[in-house]
């Protein structure tokens, strides 16, 4: 701004932005909790070419990858209530769709998009585990399920982890679009604060800082975890 930055506001609003972190993390966590297992199962349907589910996953992934998340948000936010009311009216359920907290829309949108990303992540991770691992497991008498649980998944997870990290960071960033659904996350909180005195530049600087701190921490956490999982890959010689 021509009259320079308002440093007091900059500092105050940093904490306002910070107060949006729990919501951001909450949405991120829920989306991951839904997307990790679902993405994995759908990845298996892709790898094993299970007829209908395979096609479904393919179209699903293509749609989510092919459309901007902001438009997915618009669509879900506008259509889900309509569809739900249509359903509840049809069956005469007495459910108040509209008491739904906007965070539920965030859960839906972000689980939806993260699942699609993770399908691809798991698909490529699973394909890096050589078929020989599965065969060796079968040959020593493990069932398919045991083989996956004890041999294939632990190895795929290590390969997938950096990509899961990227997906998580992207998810955290994407929640910044939650403002379109009135989600009280980092960006919206800071923007509302900025509104009072029109200190938008300061507010966005704060948002910027909070995201960098948040994402760096998340990345660091993933790195540590990956190191632990990877212990079997270290060659000592």
């Amino acid at each position, binding site marked *: 701004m021509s009259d320079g930055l308002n440093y007091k506001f900059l500092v105050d609003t940093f904490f306002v932005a910070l107060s949006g972190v729990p919501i951001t993390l909450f949405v991120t966590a829920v989306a991951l909790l839904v997307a990790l297992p679902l993405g994995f199962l759908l990845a298996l349907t892709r790898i094993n070419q299970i007829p209908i589910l395979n096609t479904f996953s393919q179209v699903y992934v293509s749609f989510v990858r092919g459309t901007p998340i902001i438009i997915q948000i618009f669509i879900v936010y506008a259509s889900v209530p309509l569809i739900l009311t249509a359903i509840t009216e049809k069956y005469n359920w007495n459910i108040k769709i509209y008491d739904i907290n906007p965070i539920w829309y965030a859960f839906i949108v972000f689980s939806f998009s993260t699942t699609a990303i993770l399908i691809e992540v798991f698909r490529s991770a699973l394909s890096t585990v*050589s078929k*020989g*691992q599965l*065969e*060796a*497991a*079968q*040959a*020593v*008498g*493990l*069932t398919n399920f*045991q083989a996956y649980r*004890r*041999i294939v998944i*632990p*190895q795929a997870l*290590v390969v997938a982890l950096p990509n899961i990290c990227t997906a998580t960071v992207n998810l955290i960033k994407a929640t910044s679009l939650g403002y379109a659904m009135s989600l009280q996350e980092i960006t919206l909180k800071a923007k509302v604060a900025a509104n009072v005195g029109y200190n938008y530049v300061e507010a966005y600087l704060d948002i910027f800082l909070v995201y960098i701190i948040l994402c760096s921490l998340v990345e660091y956490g993933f790195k540590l975890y990956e190191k632990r999982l990877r*212990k*079997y*890959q*270290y*060659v*000592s*010689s």
Partner: protein
Amino acid sequence: MLEIKDIHKSFGKNEILKGVDLTIDKGDVVVILGPSGSGKTTLLRCINFLEKADSGKAAFGELQVDLHSASKKDIHAIRQKTAFVFQSYNLFNNKTALENVTEGLITGRKVPKTEANEIGKKALDKVGLSDKYDSYPSQLSGGQQQRVGIARAVALNPDIILFDEPTSALDPELVGEVLTVMKNIANEGTTMLVVTHEMSFAKDVAKRVIFMDGGVVVEEGTPHEIFVSPKEERTKKFLKRVLPEDYTFYI
């Protein structure tokens, strides 16, 4: 002990196994030779149901199964009676040597952990890896890895061990150690079906040698019969390519 009858197997239009018969008696070591693509690996994989044959029968002692339509239960039963040593080792990358050996016992057969560990350590001792219990595959040389692969098979105490070119992914210097281990367990009376290019092993250890080509058994006999006086033209041609020029001198 193991009897295979008339295995057929195609991949798409390619018929790879065109009716192979095979009999192995208890305690025998049988070596399969043959040029690349002749179906040796496929045969072994069909026996262990890693590949589903198109048709064929197998008898493991009492147990009779159809190789195409065996039930899950039968497949499981046969896998309990057999063990497989892979060309590329296929050790579980995320498990230590000992865990590799005990995995099948603990998870597959529900052997208690302490007991399984004892069996596993004994098996690793037998292949000369007493000091490598806790090493991960990535920390082992190729020869050591393959020895873990053999220990993994031995620990299961199977009726028969199937070997698919167990030394061909190894550096020449490391081949010896693995062959030595294989000779030792053969001498203990383990039944073995071995696909290999190691002629000295076939010569020294095999009870019978089977020469396959184009999906059929071309010739079969003692090592001496096959190496010194092969009957079939195809066998002669193959041996000429594979053996050192002056090999016959020293056999």
